[in-house]
């Protein structure tokens, strides 16, 4: 009973947020709506007893990645509604439409094909122990997925290198800069 209510509330939050992301005119509003969606998902995780995932969801996605988005938005200063018609590639609209319809159809198929009810299932972690979440995660991290785990660090470093390269001034400009 309580689970269902929590699920419904969180689902509404998620969907409202998701719609808001694409419908909001202002990019900062879109980013905020994204945070709302992420929060809704975090609540879903909590209701599935996946506390650690919920915390990670908030810390990494809402806390770091959307902040990064916001920095970029403020960097570009895109607050005045730009005319999107000019920037878009001609094929982009149709491609987006195709992908949208395709993924919607896929989601629909999954929902129909899977016989069991998707909602109202008991949590996986809670059946064992409340702190088991973190432990189970650690176990798979250090056994099956240890290479993936190490590769993640490489991926992150590559991201940083990319950012540094983008942010640095071109070398040729340096003498002029020094003169000022």
């Amino acid at each position, binding site marked *: 009973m309580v689970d269902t209510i*929590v699920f419904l509330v969180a689902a509404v939050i998620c969907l409202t947020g998701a719609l808001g992301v694409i419908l909001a005119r202002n990019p900062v509003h879109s980013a905020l709506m994204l945070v709302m969606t992420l929060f809704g998902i975090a609540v879903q995780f909590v209701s599935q007893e996946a506390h650690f995932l919920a915390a990670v969801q908030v810390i990494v996605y809402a806390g770091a990645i959307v902040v990064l988005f916001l920095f970029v938005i403020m960097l570009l200063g895109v607050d005045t509604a730009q005319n999107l018609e000019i920037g878009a590639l001609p094929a982009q609209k149709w491609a987006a439409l195709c992908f949208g319809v395709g993924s919607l159809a896929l989601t629909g198929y999954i929902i129909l094909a899977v016989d069991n009810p998707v909602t109202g299932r008991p949590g996986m972690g809670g059946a064992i122990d409340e702190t088991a979440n973190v432990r189970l995660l650690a176990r798979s991290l250090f056994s099956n997925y240890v290479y993936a785990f*190490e590769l993640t*660090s490489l991926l992150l470093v590559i991201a940083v290198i990319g950012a*540094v390269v983008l942010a640095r001034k071109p070398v040729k400009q340096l003498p002029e800069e020094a003169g000022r």
Partner: protein
Amino acid sequence: MAGGMLTIARILRPQRPTRQKLIAYESGVDPVGGEWAQSQIRYYVFAVLFVLFDVEAVFIFPWATRLEVYGLFGLVEMAIFIFILVLGLFYAWRKGVLRWV
């Protein structure tokens, strides 16, 4: 337990607007009349670095709670992980993007 957090928020929220209602007047006088401005690119680098260390912390926590279980293997794995990430930090450091001028 999970609801605890939400309960607090729910209990907390209604308390604020009652205070808000005490304010009867509101006006839109604008003393400054500013423009939207742009921020600098160096903030972006810090944000990316923050993502790096945030994800790192997220990976460290499960290991930290089960330190004994994974023993030497876990320690070496984590050392490699941290080493690679520190490489990123030192790279940014070396390239001078951490320097604030």
